[in-house]
């Protein structure tokens, strides 16, 4: 019942896409049609559908699985759908992001430099289809409809990446993106082909029932990791992500970063935990290693960015790494028969999935608001926005704190849970996990610390300090409808951080379905909270081992802050005077003397540079007597791009060049080819007995 309602919602989304196309056709050439709010009706409709859908999926989280077959696609396969705990959870994440992005889009469209206000015709037809694709992937229950939805999702988002198509970078980003997306589709296709076997049983139910050989399982897992990793942004398959995500309008970037990468995580979970039988420990270790590397490299690259949205996109890479660390741990623990630990690790990963969807959407909305206000994505042109965009800056700060894993917000809880799972690693009997898991813990901690550094930079350079450009100096707060979802998501960041038990208990059905065990019941809600456990407290394993109480921490901080403030009010002078900045007595009025995004990250670049980045520095010192300033320039180039992307591209180019003369031969030579082929085939005939 719920499943049909959800599918009906998706169908309406597709119809909305068509309506959007018609709307776009009526305003030919994508020219603005009077009011800036074109398409508001569409976004409103999308928001209500996805909102209802989010609630429905939340409600069916603990319900028994529902299935449905539609007579579409290939007749003997059909389109199978299934709503179980895993899909319900991910659908909730998807629809939560989608609903808030849709509401944001209405306000975003009204704003001054709104990302799509100038080209609504290029957004409206594809946006609802993108949402539909996201939802369909999660609900699909056979390889065909899964890949159909998967590619549809990629395709629609590709079109959205190309909204600013006049920018050649956008077009390039779109091409790289779609190529990687298609690569991921093909890898998954191969994976499903393996799992389906020669008989071609593409239904997930059949794959679940089958017991493939160990080699098949291993190959399928590798393919699944590569295929979903290419979509999720696992290093080194991530290179498209920081190109494509920022290029789209901000509400779409939010969806791509916050939601679409989660759908890839979903795909991996579905394949690795559900379709393939119990994996071996080594596969979990591979996932673990890849996750750790992804987390650290993602954040290091993020630190080097000064385009706000690109920074956020690289952070998505980092967070995907964290999620995959959790997943890898769950795989290792499950293979080792540690059900409770596997449940902990998996819950941590899923928790982080939810968290990242929330705060990454929030941050992208914030960046969209900034872009709409100043017309610039470059952080070096911002500054001081906290004075003019108060609500935006507050929400963005919440998002920054959450993504930096600061208590009492949600990001901390999931990372803390991941740490707790990591701390259970040394108890495993094998040497591989024993050594790798603590190392991964160090990587995770490094990533978390660097993330904090990065978001100090992101928030500090963008919102604090003095305006670095004229546009930033006159920026105005963004539209109210754009603010509403930001406030909502900020509230969710706080809620999930303060009542983590509620989230953990809600995830229990998912964890039971995937690893056959759950975490201990936490104080989900007051009415079935076990006696003696405080409301906000979570106990991952045992109370004596570790515990965390988000609500109490919040209350404590609140109380102590009030105490400090009251104390100061009582004891201290109330006098306050505004004056020019002190700056050690040398106040300089030029905002250019402020720390920039690049200079902020300079120490980290210098330290990690030799390892990770290729940096070409040029120093230009003017000749003696010249008053021109000396300049130092760093050009960062991505080592991973050079290792993993450039050679294949160069190979294709070389082959294309080498083969190209075949177009310009004489007829005689072409005849010679035919002749050679004939003789060759005859020789084959003559020589084969």
């Amino acid at each position: 019942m719920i499943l049909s309602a959800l599918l009906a919602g998706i169908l309406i989304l597709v119809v909305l896409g068509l309506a959007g196309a018609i709307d776009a056709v009526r305003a030919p050439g994508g020219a603005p049609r009077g009011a800036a709010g074109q398409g508001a009706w569409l976004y409103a409709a999308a928001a209500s559908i996805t909102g209802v859908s989010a609630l429905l999926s939340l409600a069916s989280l603990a319900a028994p699985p529902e299935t449905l077959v539609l007579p579409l696609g290939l007749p003997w396969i059909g389109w199978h759908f299934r709503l179980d705990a895993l899909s319900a959870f991910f659908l909730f994440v998807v629809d939560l992001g989608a609903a808030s992005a849709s509401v944001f889009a209405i306000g975003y469209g009204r704003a001054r430099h709104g990302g799509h206000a100038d080209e609504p015709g290029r957004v409206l037809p594809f946006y609802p289809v993108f949402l539909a694709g996201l939802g369909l992937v999660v609900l699909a229950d056979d390889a065909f409809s899964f890949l159909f939805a998967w590619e549809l999702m990629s395709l629609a988002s590709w079109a959205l990446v190309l909204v600013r198509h006049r920018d050649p970078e956008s077009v390039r980003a779109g091409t790289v993106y779609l190529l990687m997306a298609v690569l991921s589709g093909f890898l998954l296709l191969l994976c499903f082909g393996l799992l389906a076997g020669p008989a071609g049983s593409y239904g997930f139910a059949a794959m679940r029932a089958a017991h493939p050989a160990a080699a098949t399982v291993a190959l399928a897992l590798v393919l699944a990791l590569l295929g979903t990793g290419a979509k999720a942004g696992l290093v080194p398959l991530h290179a498209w992500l920081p190109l494509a995500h920022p290029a789209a309008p901000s509400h779409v970037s939010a969806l791509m970063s916050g939601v679409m990468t989660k759908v890839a995580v979903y795909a991996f979970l579905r394949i690795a935990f559900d379709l393939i039988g119990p994996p071996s420990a080594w596969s979990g270790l591979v996932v673990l290693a890849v996750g750790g590397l992804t987390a650290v490299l993602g954040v290091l690259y993020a630190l080097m960015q000064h385009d706000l949205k690109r920074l956020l996109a690289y952070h998505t890479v980092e967070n995907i790494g964290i999620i995959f660390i959790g997943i890898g741990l769950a795989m290792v623990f499950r293979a080792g028969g540690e059900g409770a630990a596997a449940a902990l690790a998996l819950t941590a990963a899923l928790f982080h999935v939810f968290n990242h969807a929330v705060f990454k959407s929030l941050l992208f909305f914030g960046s969209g608001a900034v872009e709409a206000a100043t017309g610039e994505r470059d952080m070096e042109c911002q500054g001081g926005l906290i004075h003019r965009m108060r609500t935006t800056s507050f929400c963005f700060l919440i998002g920054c704190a959450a993504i930096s894993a600061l208590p009492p917000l949600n990001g901390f809880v999931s990372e803390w849970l991941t740490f707790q799972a990591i701390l259970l690693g040394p108890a495993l009997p094998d040497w591989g996990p024993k050594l790798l898991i603590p190392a991964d813990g160090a990587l995770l901690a490094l990533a978390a610390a660097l993330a904090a550094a990065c978001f100090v930079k992101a928030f500090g350079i963008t919102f604090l300090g003095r305006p670095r450009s004229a546009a930033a100096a006159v920026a105005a707060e963004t539209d109210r409808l754009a603010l509403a979802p930001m406030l909502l998501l900020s509230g969710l960041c706080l809620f999930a951080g303060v009542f983590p038990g509620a989230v953990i208990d809600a995830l229990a059905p998912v964890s039971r379905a995937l690893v056959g065990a759950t975490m201990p019941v936490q104080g989900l809600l007051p009415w079935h909270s076990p006696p003696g456990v405080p409301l906000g407290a979570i106990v991952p394993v045992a109370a004596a081992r570790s515990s965390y109480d988000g609500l109490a921490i919040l209350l404590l901080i609140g109380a102590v802050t009030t105490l400090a403030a009251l104390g100061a009010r009582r004891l201290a002078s109330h006098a306050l005077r505004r004056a020019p900045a002190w700056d050690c007595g040398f106040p300089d009025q030029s905002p250019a003397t402020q720390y920039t995004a690049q200079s902020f990250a300079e120490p980290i670049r210098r330290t990690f540079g030799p390892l990770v980045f290729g940096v070409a520095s040029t120093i230009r010192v003017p000749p003696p007597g010249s008053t021109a300033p000396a300049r130092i320039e760093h050009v960062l180039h991505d080592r991973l791009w050079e290792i993993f992307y450039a050679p294949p591209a160069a190979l294709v180019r070389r082959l294309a060049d080498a083969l190209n003369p075949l177009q310009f031969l004489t007829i005689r030579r072409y005849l010679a080819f035919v002749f050679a082929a004939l003789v060759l085939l005859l020789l084959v005939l003559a020589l084969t007995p």
Partner: protein
Amino acid sequence: MGFSFDIAHLLAGLMVLTSLLLLYQDRIGALLNVLRLHGLVLALALAWQAHLQSASDLFLAATIALVVKALVIPGALERLVERLAIHRLIETVGGIGPTMLGGIALVALSLRVMLPITAAADAVSRQDIALALSVVLIGLLIMVTRRNAVGQVAGFLSLDNGIDLAAGGARGMPLVVELSVAVSVLIAFIVIGIFLFRIRERFDTVDLAALEEFRGERR
């Protein structure tokens, strides 16, 4: 069998021999003469088959071969050479010696390919097919090794003669006449095409760059 087989065999063998002769020629005049011979031998072979199979339509085919392939087309080619003032010497690729060796290797190949044919197939067709295959292959070889339109047409013609030979040797094959007419039309088209479009060296040029000017990509 006996005598009738021997004659058929002889004529088919002659076809291969003439094909090799064609391969050997590097002067247009001689080439065209050999081509005439080729057509003539084909006509004879077809006629002999017609006699053997007492198939009247094969006589027609033989006549067509005689008229079109031994007379009209070589004649037309000769006119072409005069009108377009084509160089009398045909530039070949790879030299005559290796080409001849290649031709002989092709004969060997076609025999090897056709050897496994079961004895159930009658001896005439077994021989004919093997030799016809050689003629076809040598025809292609001629096309590939001649840098000159006329040389290539000659190659194509001899290839076609090989096919006719095979068709004639296929006892009771229907539509032989129609097919041979169709192929003759094809060749006529080629010749007319050369006339019409003044394609002198379009088959080939020594200078690749000159040719590329005509390719759409380099416009």
